[in-house]
């Protein structure tokens, strides 16, 4: 595992140099793995419009040492690349697969416009929404109305994220003194503090089959299950109040990992919280709380550091920021750090973790991975 950046603006390195740095660290972490000789395939997770380059996958091979080797790109979150690597290894054809994802939002001048380009060109784009967060605000309203979630519950999510983030060395946005209710409204009910900022980062992960993993690491963290799902991409038809995609992804991953009761069997979780209300939604979708109960368990401290089932010990996207498609790998790398004991976190047991990613509005795709040591 290797990462680089997690700064609002990495000025001295291009995206390729950032990936190179992250890859170098990952290979060092994997016992000095030689990418030219010991890696069977490389997967890159990125999107053209974020890169500002058409056919951006052209740039995937060199920074990870993959030139003239099997390299391909997945237009999705980094955790989805982990899912592909998992399948590749399980097929028996590949032993070592490297996954890369990066984001350099500070290079993008027109972020809102780019995000809006992801909406349906016929049914949504003519609305010319001035603020793409309005789509998330509608989801927040639907969720809050259906499950009786109030503004103070969102206050609690934000407060928890910033408090936890203070202990995370790469959480540049963690500011525990900041009160959510004092920040301006962006799109009712979302306030500025509800919305994660973007951040520049690159993360590289090395995955290996059971046959060869011990060669690179004495104490590997096992991927016990990974699954993903997409709900309808037609915005007007999707479920606004509950992220079904996260539920289905979680159920698939739990089935592979033979987890029957996630609330009891999972020790801690890293979930997408790029909007504060999403953390509550995703906790419920991942069956870490009954529907509508996440807010109450949060109030009881269950999801806080040191609680019954800590969620986002890192502070999540609210504290670290969103490095575009590298966000899922950011969640994964933090969880791995905690499980290996490299990150001192307030968690009773760190043997089973669940990691989740979502790609932000207007997408309806989630990926969930179950990790074990």
């Amino acid at each position, binding site marked *: 595992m290797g990462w680089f950046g997690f700064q609002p603006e990495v000025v001295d390195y291009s995206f390729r140099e950032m990936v190179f740095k992250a890859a170098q660290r990952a290979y060092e972490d994997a016992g000095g793995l030689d990418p030219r000789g010991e890696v069977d395939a490389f997967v890159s997770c990125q*999107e*053209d419009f974020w890169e500002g380059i*058409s056919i951006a996958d*052209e740039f995937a091979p060199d920074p990870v040492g*993959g030139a*003239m080797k*099997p390299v*391909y790109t997945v237009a999705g979150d980094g955790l989805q690349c982990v899912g592909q690597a998992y399948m590749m290894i399980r097929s028996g054809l590949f032993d070592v697969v490297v996954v890369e994802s990066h984001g350099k939002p500070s290079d993008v001048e027109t972020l809102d416009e780019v995000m809006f380009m*992801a909406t349906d060109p*016929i049914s949504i784009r003519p609305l010319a929404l001035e603020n793409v967060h309005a789509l998330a605000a509608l989801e927040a309203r639907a969720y809050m109305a259906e499950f009786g979630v109030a503004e103070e519950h969102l206050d609690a999510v934000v407060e928890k994220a910033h408090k936890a983030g203070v202990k995370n060395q790469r959480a540049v946005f963690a500011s525990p003194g900041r009160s959510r209710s004092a920040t301006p409204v962006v799109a009712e009910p979302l306030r500025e503090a509800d919305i994660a900022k973007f951040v520049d980062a690159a993360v590289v992960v090395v995955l290996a089959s059971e046959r060869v993993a011990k060669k690179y690491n004495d104490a590997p963290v096992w991927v016990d299950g990974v699954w993903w799902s997409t709900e309808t991409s037609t915005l007007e038809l999707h479920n606004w109040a509950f992220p079904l995609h996260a539920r289905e992804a979680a159920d698939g991953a739990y089935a592979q990992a033979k987890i029957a009761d996630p609330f009891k069997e999972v020790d801690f979780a890293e979930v997408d919280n790029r909007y504060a209300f999403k953390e509550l939604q995703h906790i419920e979708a991942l069956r870490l709380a009954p529907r509508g109960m996440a807010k109450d368990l949060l109030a009881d401290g269950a999801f806080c550091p040191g609680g019954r089932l800590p969620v986002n010990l890192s502070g999540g996207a609210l504290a670290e920021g969103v490095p575009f498609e590298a966000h899922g790998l950011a969640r994964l790398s933090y969880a791995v750090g905690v499980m290996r004991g490299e990150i001192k976190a307030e968690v009773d047991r760190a043997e089973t973790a669940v990691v989740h990613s979502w790609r932000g509005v207007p997408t309806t795709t989630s990926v969930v991975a179950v990790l074990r040591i």
Partner: protein
Amino acid sequence: MTGRNLNFKHRVAVVGAGLTLFRRRMLETPQELAWLAARQALDEAGLTLKDIDCVVIGSAPDAFDGVHMKGEYLAEGAGGIRKPVVRVYVGGATGVFVPIAAWWHAASGLCKRVLAVAEEKMSHAAKPHPQYVFRYIWDPVVERPISPNLLWIFAMEMHRYMYKCNVKKEDIALVAVKNKRNACGHPSAQLCNPHIKVEDVLNSEVLVWPVNRLDVSPVSDGAAAVVLASEEEARRITDTPVWIKGIGWTLDTTHWTNRELAYPEYVRRAAEMAYRMAGIDNPRKQIDVAEPYDPFDYKELHHMEGLGLAKRCEAPILTREGVTQRDGDLPINPSGGLLGVGNPIAAAGLMKVAEIFWQIRGEAGARQVKKPVYTGLAQAWGDLMQAGTVIVMGI
């Protein structure tokens, strides 16, 4: 290295294929095109969307369809809703990569029936021409400032090949003539021309010398789909599954300026990976029919050599001798290829896989090659003259 363990738990077969018309300015939306192809593939396999466990989508630059995160958008038409759906991407080589990725979905044992869909809608992209999208594929620092055009670099490659192999434009034009004539047997074809002659190609407008207009495939819209299944499922679905015997792909460095343009080494390595898996040591003898990627006529020759179907610089000779004709000893692009059927980037690559599937099943109709087909190959190419994807299928 890859291919070490060939004892797969699950063999994987193709059990159905579908294809839309390839045309410029189709009225259907990208989602609708994807669904037309997907449904045809499902119908051919006798399945419905409910039977599909996983979906793999392929589409080249988002800028063609004009949608950011195109995979999320296409999930709708490609049948990916409430299912695990992923969009894979290796530029122009994506079409053949879609069934490669679908292969490990099934070979991993995690999905039993996989729908692989490729779609591209180029004709409404960018103004004044879809080529404009290619202004943004370059290194943003060292290349974009000189405003290169994609045709320029392929003209350089063609020229280099002509120089190294001492090939005349007349020899290369034979490929365009063959493929545009072959396309007349294809119900989806955009550019069938039964009367085309070498002189027509040579006399068409020069775009960037030595590339003339009829040396190049057209701008197209279209979609293609195949259904893959694990062995147990495949045998349940059909009596004539077509097995995926080998997969391979390679990406060379982004720095195309440092490449020997006369020979696609990355295609050779991709083919080597696929051949090793398929147990092929003499492709010229063991491959009965091939669909190498032919966005330009010289590329068919280039790729035949990279794939080991011809020795270096031998492909133009085989073409001149008629070996690559539909009734020849080694039929190449009996579908009509991209030059004849059309080139909706990712869909064009998957069209080639569908063609090999139909050839092996003996269902290619007017395009069926004369010799018996046991093993076939499809290949695509993309990025900055950098990516090669290869799939070997057989009975």
